[in-house]
Structures are given as C-alpha cells and as structure tokens.
C-alpha cells in the first residue's frame, strides 16, 4: 500500500493549496486529509475539476464531535470513478459555532447529508437551500450526537440507577 507521501492526489493538492493542507495520512487504506476550513470549497472543486483526478462522486458527508478538542469535524468522502480512488477530507470547526459553506452547488446529493449533519451535530451549512431537521422530530431542541447530551432518554422515570450498577449517581447514596 502506498504511503500518503506517494499519493498523487495529495501531491497535487499540496502543490495547489500549500499550507491549506493541514495534515495527511493513510487510515484503513484510505487517504485522509485535514484541510483548512476556509479552503474546503476550493479543494473539493479542484478535486472535482482536475482532469486527472476527477473526484466526481460524494460518497458521504458527516459530522464528528471531538469534545476533548472542543471541535466538530466535518468529513467528506469523495470517490473518483475514473481512477477508482477514494479520499477523505476533514475540516475542523469550533464547537460553539460550527459553520461552513454548503457543497450542494457541487453535489446535489449533499442536500440531505448536510441536513442530517445539521440535525445531529448542529453544523450550519451556509447557502444550503433548505437547512432543517431531517430525521429527528422538528421540535427537538438538542443536537443528539453531540457528546454533551446523554444517549438515554431523559423522560424515562422507571429506571433506578442502582439497578444498572450506578449507585451514587443520582440515587441519593
């Protein structure tokens, strides 16, 4: 397996964008590149338009919460059918105001993916045509995949912490 340094995609990207490429490595056989947030649209457009690379398919897009860094990452996974190559791009947004431009102008399929990322992580995609919740109930007030929100349903009253080996946590002991 080739290393990140030998990868033509990375070499072309660093040649074009220089220090907008923050870091790169190969994880689970896929090139993963962290990109400066301000450059993300230019980077994806470059990968899309480049005659040799032709990353013209957006496989997926999602958020990742890193509470230890107080950051929310947005991950874009692109696929070049021409070369049968994949690349993963990451941008890092501040936890308190995650905001980044939409890629729906480039990939119409990003519409629902960005809505899902907004729904679960609260990332605002500026310029998105219809940014509202997609999977959760409309009146939900939280972004449930952020780690500050407990996974368990807080409206449940029939559970005693003692039964779950958590005595001392809210059980009054």
């Amino acid at each position, binding site marked *: 397996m080739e290393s990140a340094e030998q990868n033509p995609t990375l070499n072309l990207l660093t040649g074009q964008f220089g220090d907008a490429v923050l870091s790169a490595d190969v994880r689970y056989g896929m090139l993963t590149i962290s990109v400066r947030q301000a450059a993300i649209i230019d980077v994806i457009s470059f990968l899309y338009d480049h005659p040799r690379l032709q990353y013209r398919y957006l496989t997926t897009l999602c958020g990742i919460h890193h509470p230890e860094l107080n950051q929310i990452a947005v991950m874009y996974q692109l696929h070049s059918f021409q070369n049968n190559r994949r690349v993963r791009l990451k941008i890092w947004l501040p936890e308190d105001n995650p905001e980044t431009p939409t890629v729906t102008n480039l990939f119409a399929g990003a519409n629902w993916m960005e809505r899902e990322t907004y729904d679960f992580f609260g990332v605002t995609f500026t310029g998105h045509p219809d940014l509202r919740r997609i*999977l*959760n109930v409309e009146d939900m007030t939280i972004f449930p995949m952020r780690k500050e929100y407990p*996974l368990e*349903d*807080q409206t*449940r009253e*029939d*559970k005693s912490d003692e039964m779950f080996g958590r005595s001392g946590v809210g059980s009054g002991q």
Partner: protein
Amino acid sequence: MSDAHVKVSLAEKPPGLEGTGFFATSLEKVVGLARKNSIWPLPFATSCCGIEFMATMGAHYDLARFGSERLSFSPRQADLLMVMGTIAKKMGPILRQVYEQMAEPRWVMSVGACACSGGIFDTYSVLQGIDRIIPVDVYVPGCPPRPEQILDGIMKIQHLVETESLRRRDSPEYKALLNKYGVE
C-alpha cells in the same frame, strides 16, 4: 361420511330467562357477546413484532378463530388498534392521529417490549411506551412475543369487550382518561 371429527364450538349464550320461543337477557350482554366475536383489528406494525403478528394471522395460529379474520386497514372501521413494534418519537403524532380517527368503542393493544416501554431502545429518538400518547387496554410483553402470547392478549381484549358496560364510553371517568391524553 361422518362429520363427527369436526368440532364446532359456538359462543356460549349469556345467562337469561328461557322459554318456548323466547330468550330474555340484558342488551348489554348480547352486545358484548357480538362485539367480542367480531373484533376488527387494525395492525400498526413497525418492526419484528409485526412479523410475529403475521404468523398469528396465518393458518397455523389463525386469529380468525377468534372472529378477527377481517383486518381493517382503515382506522375508521377498526375496533382494535394493535401497535406492534418500536415507535419513534417522530412516529408518535401519526400513531395518535390513527387512534383519533377510530370510532368509539375502540380498544388498544400494545404488543412487545418496545411498544410497551421503549424496550431496549432507551434513547433520545424512541417513544418510551405508547401509553405516553394514547391509552392502552392490554399490554403483551416479549421481545418479540410469540403468537401464543399475542393470542392471549387478544383473548384478554375479548374479555374486556365482552364485559364492558354500554355506558362506559359516556362516563366522566372515560372522558377524564381521554382528556389526560389530550384527545378531543
């Protein structure tokens, strides 16, 4: 050809006064008997409990034996709402609307751990029991319950239907119950 092997059991007649050419009993008992043996269920199946219900409806377990061979896929004609499976919070208003579209008298059966309490899905997206939005008459536990358990629940519903007072749905207690759920 003998038909001695065919065992037909008729519904037992309610207690009453009998003589030549007449039988007298209370209207409530006759109505209860008729309703009990002609319940039209509306299956609201969202997951694996619905598969068990399909087995219950099939020839082997044969829900038709209990007078419920006719499923109603319109809530307006249904007597019994059978909720089988996980109800996500987003599904809640839809379930409630289906319940509101049913005509009185109506009964609700909650089948399986998810419908009864949220089951293993103790999470932000799942309704922790349908009795948070609609009143439930019979709970069938299990994950999923076997067809025998669903039949047992149906028989419990039949018992409720048979013994229910004709005035119950007009009573202030029943209205208070519905008001508690914000219905009507």
